[in-house]
């Protein structure tokens, strides 16, 4: 049981995007592996957590799921800076949620850490018949702004795991390259106790490996 509480890294995520695009459902699918069709409107911010494995490292993802409504926007901004990963979600069946991406992105860029990994997610890929934004458009937007991109379905769980894990992989890559100052927790990353105490911060060890 106690081994459940040891981790190599804790990484903080936020999930942002318009209201009703399925942010809370993505989180629920990821943490509880279930889908709740009639999810209540998120008020403020909700929290969820899960372990993932990246290159044999136990990484605990702490995920803050934000309310998409305009009225909560000012509150949710406080979470940007402390997050190392951000999932920016739109709904492929509602054009306007895609059109608002620029506003979200601007907000995120302004308030978050410059090293934050952002994953663009086109959710509700199961509703192909109602699609209003093509895959190519999403991909192009992501490319243009330097984001990762994926289409997911919180309902069928398609790509949900991948979207969270791939974001973690990128962040872990950045940790290894020493992009993050992992000693400062306000960057959204915390190193596990055992890694700290042995003074084997990956910054030094992994850089050495890269040289070889």
């Amino acid at each position, binding site marked *: 049981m106690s081994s459940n509480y040891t981790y190599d890294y*804790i990484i903080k995520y936020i999930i942002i995007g318009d209201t009703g695009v399925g942010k809370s459902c993505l989180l629920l699918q990821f943490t509880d592996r279930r889908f709740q069709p009639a999810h209540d409107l998120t008020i403020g*911010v909700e*929290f969820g*957590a899960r372990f993932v494995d990246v290159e044999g490292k136990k990484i605990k993802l702490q995920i803050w799921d934000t309310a998409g409504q305009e009225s909560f926007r000012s509150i949710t901004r406080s*979470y940007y800076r402390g997050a190392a990963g951000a999932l920016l979600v739109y709904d492929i069946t509602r054009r306007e949620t895609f059109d608002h991406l620029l506003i979200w992105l601007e907000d995120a860029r302004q308030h978050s850490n410059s090293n934050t990994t952002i994953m663009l997610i086109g959710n509700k890929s199961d509703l192909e018949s109602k699609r209003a934004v093509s895959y190519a458009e999403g991909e192009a937007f992501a490319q243009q702004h330097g984001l990762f991109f994926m289409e997911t379905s919180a309902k069928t769980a398609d790509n949900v795991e991948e979207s969270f894990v791939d974001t973690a992989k990128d962040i872990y890559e950045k940790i290894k390259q020493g992009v993050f100052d992992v000693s400062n927790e306000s960057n959204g990353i915390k190193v596990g106790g055992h890694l700290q105490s042995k003074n084997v911060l990956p910054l030094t060890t992994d850089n050495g490996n890269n040289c070889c």
Partner: protein
Amino acid sequence: MDFFSRGYKGLLGEKGQPQSVEDTVAKLVDRASNSTLLEDRRAAILGLKGLSREYRQEVGEKGIGALLHILNEDKADIDTTKPILEILNILCTPDREDSATDVAIKFTDEIVQNSSNINLFLDILQEYDFYVRFHDVQLLSTLLAIKPDNVQGCVLTAPMGISRLMDLLGDRREIIRNEGLLLLISLTENNADIQKIVAFENAFEKLLEIITEEDGLNGGIIVQDCLHLILNLLRYNVSNQNFFRETSCIQKIPPLLSFSAEYQHHGFELEFLTQDWHEQKIANTIVLLELIKILVVPNNMNTVTNQNVMIQCGVLKTVIEISLSSNAPSVVKSHSLYALADLIRGNQNGQEYLAKTVVPVSHPLQSSENNAKPSPFNQISIPPRPAIMSLIVVAVGAEHLENYSTRAAATYAFESYTFNNINAQLVLASTLIPPPDDNPNSEIVIAKPQSAGSLLLSALLEWEDSEADPYVVWFASVIFSHILMNNERSKEYARGIFFGNGDDNEEENLSLLHSIAGNLMLATRQNAERQNADVRVLIGYLCILCIWLWDSPISVREFLSESGHLQMLITSITQSSGVDARVQGLCAFLLGICYEFNHNIDPQITRSTLQQILLNRIGYDQFVNRITRLRESPHFKHASQYLQVVPEEVAKGLPELYFDYVFVEFFKKNYETIQRSIRDPNAKSFSGFKGSDYQGDNDSVITSYKDVIHTQEKEISQLKESIKQLEQQLESQKLSAENQLSSLNNEIDTLKKTIETKTADNVKLEKEREDLYDCIADQEASVKKYRERLIALNQEVSDIEEEDDEGEGDDDDEE
């Protein structure tokens, strides 16, 4: 010094005459805003500061706007920032006497109305200078105290606001850190959004670190403040509670409670059991226990998960030790017992853990006898006993160590142990029989050996000493009720208990049920004569009987087998004065239960006899009135859900605990059924009744359920009606069908008979025919024979025709 001389020159007029305050303030404000030299501006600000205490109104009215403007422009200049923050702080701090109409409120309003001002103060927090930070934090605290909503709103929407405030916790200068902590405490009061952001900024971890640095619970008030802030972040905030658990913060609680992995080492155990409890440590511990309780509030969605983590990581273990074997003062112990209760309530793992735990017994009496310093070695030389036993010892005050509030807490903890735990009830019920006196395992104990159950029973029946402490009986009765509650097998065990003078003659031995009822009768009499029987004792006994007899016809029969019992109930109910209304109500309820669960096993007192007694001697209205008066009595209505003693009550003497909340719920759920079944003689007894566990406290919910019940009732009666009709229809159809059937059967029978006779006739005729054939054949044969003989004879005749005529005559006879 130069500053001062320049500033105060403004106070003097051109001819050295003193000016009015207004003029001076105006002049200083003007200089502070418009002087070209920085030094002049600083001097003017200091001048205003000098005036601000005495002439708050004047400085505020003329200066606030200008000062805020200067602050915005010159925030980089420490010597400007510092005094302005000080002035604003002075202006906004209300005088104690008259805070409602104070000008401070007006000035605060003026400042917080513009959110950019708050943002400005938050920005200034980036300045590292001690005084700037200090006054800035204080100013924010002052504003927050007066206008919490505005300030919380501003801080919430400033993207960096909370993270700046959180930085204060990392400030090495203790004063700043402590001020920041206080600011965060008031900021997080009642605002879930701020609570979440603060948690997001790693507050839990930072605060727990500070607590550890400050020597844990042994530390000073800073520890209490840190715990208080954690409490604020967790209270009513499920998301933060999840975060707290997911970041393994629960695991950090046991070490704080002086728990250690090295606990097994004897030395450490001693240290734990003989801690020094100074006042601050008591306060710190209580907040920490409060924090534990917040995570395991009964019926919350996450409670079971949190309970399991706490059981697994040792929180429960430490809490049990503090509750039952530490030297903690009573106030800590009662908090700890309540925490213990919530940790195991409805959680099988926790209940089992408690059941398995044995705790060392601390015995201060022994050390005082020795007249020496309390020696820890003496204290733990007494063999440990089961934790459950200790709970009962504390609850019934067997060792006279604990106050009422701790005893109530122990009783509540016991209740949590038996809550939804049939096995625990049975195990305890089985210990009701006292262990044998010559138990070889009990040599060390001086007093006679006791089990949990026997200890409980002796407390329960010792009512005669109850004048001084009626709670011996009362707590024992609550505990005993929880052992019996809805558990027929426990009741069966209890029915098997007899008291007597050792004879095996059961006639002379008194059963436990009869002992309790007998005690109740004696106590009732004494209570009526204003002697030493407290009404709590009566209530305690009556509550036990109600729970014991409920849904247990065999127990009802045993109770009614002594006619005095019924008589006593009737007498109590019908008295028009001199009997406590609550006792009367309980008597009525008990009588109703006797009626409801009397399954006519005893021919002496049947259901209908009881009903007659009830309706004729008491009357239905009086019966209902008694129950209603009980329901409306304040102690019944406001029974404490967690069995808590209000400290003020204890100061007055005895606490005001009269009813256990669980009993109140049980009563509320069932009294209407009892009333209805008495009114309507045809109503069916509902044996095997299993009530729902519905616990509603919301009126609207209750009414909505009532509506549902009403419609369902209507539906049920309609359905019943239609069933009746259908049944009748069926009955008549059945009848006619039966008639038809029987007539048809008859017909068949007669036909069968005819056929039988006919067949018989046939057979007879056949046989006759057969015989006749045979006969014919015989005849033919003999005819043939005779013919042959005839022919032969003819031959002879013809041969001897002439000789013999008589032979011819013979032949004719033969034919």
